[in-house]
């Protein structure tokens, strides 16, 4: 990164981290309605317009693949006047590399992209910018995501969300798939970003430029789509029923609707009554160590 110290970062200079979903399986399912090339033809002009909005604006694109993720474009490294189309070459390389990492020949069931990985990479980049000096552009993350949520990434994604919240980086999400994403919904809600699921994908550019182009400073003056509110009620791990009150494992915070002898998530053994708490914790130790 070549940050010239003389650059004057005002509060309307943005660092936009764009996470592009390059999951081949997702794009294969939607190829009849909205192809990847269509998608790129909306996104690239958007990235260019961000760069045109302010000379100091910076755009970094991270490809979120199925097996890996990587930086494919950084406007601060690109040659002057080079437009965002230059990322296509890197993108092609990335897709090839991502394919090489695949182990199975075909995919059954749910396939999700590595959102946790690309979110972490974006946050790392932002941390680097934060530490570059007292003056830096205002960072935000925009997720252009279509693949279904990967339940296995839950812990990693939640950690990324909380770390973004801690460093006050809003995560905007634009869901291009057919279904809502619980991850991104939470991410935007927690970090104060905008969550949007466009109804007309053929007008994606219009959505992007209307909702996501404004810098953070301007947002305070705009009426952007507001979250309807996230239902934070939990359902139990055992029956997936929504519950208002239940038992929580003190070790791993799993939720159960009734008392279990042993936590199904982390294997801790629960004590029964107050009198044998001591023995229960002894047992817990033994079982978890073995």
């Amino acid at each position: 990164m070549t940050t010239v110290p003389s650059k004057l970062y005002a509060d309307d200079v943005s660092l936009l981290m764009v996470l592009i979903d390059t999951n081949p399986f997702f794009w294969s399912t939607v190829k009849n309605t909205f192809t990847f090339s269509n998608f790129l033809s909306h996104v690239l002009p958007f990235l260019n317009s961000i760069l045109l909005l302010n000379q100091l604006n910076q755009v970094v694109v991270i490809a979120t693949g199925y097996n890996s993720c990587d930086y494919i474009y950084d406007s601060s490294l690109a040659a002057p006047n080079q437009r965002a189309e230059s990322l296509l070459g890197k993108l092609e390389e990335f897709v090839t590399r991502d394919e090489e990492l695949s182990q199975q020949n075909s995919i059954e069931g749910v396939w999700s992209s590595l959102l946790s990985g690309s979110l972490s990479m974006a946050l790392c980049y932002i941390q680097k910018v934060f530490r570059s000096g007292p003056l830096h552009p205002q960072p935000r993350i925009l997720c252009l995501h279509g693949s279904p949520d990967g339940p296995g990434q839950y812990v990693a994604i939640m950690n990324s969300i909380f770390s973004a919240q801690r460093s006050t980086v809003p995560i905007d999400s634009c869901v291009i798939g057919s279904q809502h994403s619980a991850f991104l919904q939470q991410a935007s809600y927690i970090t104060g970003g905008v969550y949007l699921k466009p109804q007309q994908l053929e007008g994606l550019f219009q959505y992007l430029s209307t909702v996501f182009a404004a810098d953070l400073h301007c947002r305070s003056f705009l009426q952007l789509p507001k979250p309807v509110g996230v239902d934070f009620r939990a359902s139990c791990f055992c029956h997936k029923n929504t519950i208002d009150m239940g038992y929580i494992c003190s070790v791993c915070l799993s939720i159960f609707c009734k008392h279990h002898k042993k936590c199904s998530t982390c294997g801790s053994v629960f004590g029964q009554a107050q009198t044998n708490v001591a023995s229960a914790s002894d047992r817990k130790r033994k079982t978890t160590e073995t």
Partner: protein
Amino acid sequence: MTDGQVIKRARYKSSVKDFGVPGVLKMTRERFFFMPNDPKSSARLNVEFRLVKGHKFTKEGSNKQALLNLTVDQGGNYIFEFDTFSDRDACREYVATAIAVSGEAGRAGSERSAAPLQDEQLSHAEMERRIRLLQEDSELQKLHKQLVIGGVLSEAEFWATRKKLLDENASRKSKQQVGLRNDMFHVKPSSDGQSNKVTFNLTPEIIHQIFAEKPAVRQAFLNFVPSKMTEKEFWTKYSRAEYLHSTKNVVVAAAEAAEDDELAVFLKQDDMAASEARRKIRRVDPTLDMEADEGDDYTHLPDHGLSCDGSKDVTDSPYELYRRSLLQELNRHAAVVLEGRAIDVELGDTRSVAEALARSKQDDLTDEVSDGNINQERLDRISRMAEIDDLQAPRDLAVAPLCIKDPRDYFDSQQANAIKSLGDTLAGAKQMKCSLSTAEAYGSLRDYISEIKTSGLNDSIVKPEVALKVLNGLTQSISSTKYHLGKNPHESVLDRLPYVAKQELLHHWMSIQELLKHFWSSYPITTTHLFTKVSRLKDAMSQIYPKLQEIKESVQSDFRHQVSLLVQPMLQALDAAFAHYDADIQKRSAKSGERPNGFV
């Protein structure tokens, strides 16, 4: 209070210093009269208690006048002097209740002046407590005004549900233990300047403090009094010693001590205090290096930085015993004051105070010495505090690593709800599951990329009609979510309402809760009293209906829906009560139909 009025002999005064007009003060529930003995005097009074705002009175004391001062609303006051304090107190209590009663009645603008009080005899303190509670909590006062003065509930019923409040208040009021005074030189010798006599004034309070600060004096008192000397002699001797100290004449003090053994006890340094101090020093953190701090403060200065006349600074060893340093005394005094009043003995009896103090000190001592080897403990402590990490065996904390078998569970427990709230179903997810070949998928993706690479971007990115559609859709959804209230926990509907409407809603909510509490607590109806209470409550509740309707209509149409949402649960709660009431009445009438005789 029993006969409803109080008549006392008193003098009416225009000011405290005024001699006053002798006459008779008569108090009834509503007003008080003053009739001067001299019928020609113009100082005749006839004042309603409604106008009286408060009352003040002098403390009971030997040389004070028994005064009662009634302050009036419009400013100005009436001062009465009584012959005795008991007369005054009788009037004072009467006035206090009268003011309370008429004050509330006056505020409510109702004529039922003393009615709420009639069904019970309240102590003066109880009454004051309630009044204070009402004054502190304006919401409670509003409720009280509405329900008690409005005649829906009786005073006793109102407070019965708030017993806890009254109790809490009472316990909060429980007497605070008075600590020791923190001025040091309270035993100042005073001389009249003519004779050579020097007077010391000792009060039980001061004696207590002396005992606490100087264990040697306490011990001497227990030893000498009354076997060897009287208490008076003892304190005379003590005062003598103090006087000698105050002159700072070490030589004279030593000489006198040599002559008188008992006096010597007071003049020498306090061994007991010293040993106590040593014991305390032993308890100080052994790793604390006080020498290292030297120079940080003024302790390295001679005499701790206190200015003193250097002439007597010679350390003559025989007299050293009789020298007391100011700093020692200051420290000792501070320690005693901070320790506070440890004993619970009436201060009057000097001996019992001394004994109690001695006992409490003894307890402390045995507590510490009981385990015997303090030194060993000290050594243990040193080794514990000055631990060097490198020399310790690796400490295995009994922490088991967290092993989560399947983090997917966490996701599943939340996703269902999150998606539901957006109006999505999980059916979509099922549809998307399909079998795909990896190579095929990646191949097509690469094709798309090369396609856009070769063809470049479209000339018009978005068709104008699509863009318009998008803009319209966005504007619509934004303007609809703008009024989509209640979901955001940060903004409440109440805050958007006009202030008056908000206050009224909250107030109605409070009073409905209060009424319902009383309503439900009176079931099952066993007595006629409860029956009338319930019907009274029912009437009061039915009056709230039109008021709620009024609020609903008074707010702007924007908020009407919100307000009706807010009012809904209130109405439901009331409806439930009415349904119960009606059902109960029906049951009663059915029963009384079966048994027409003698059932209320």
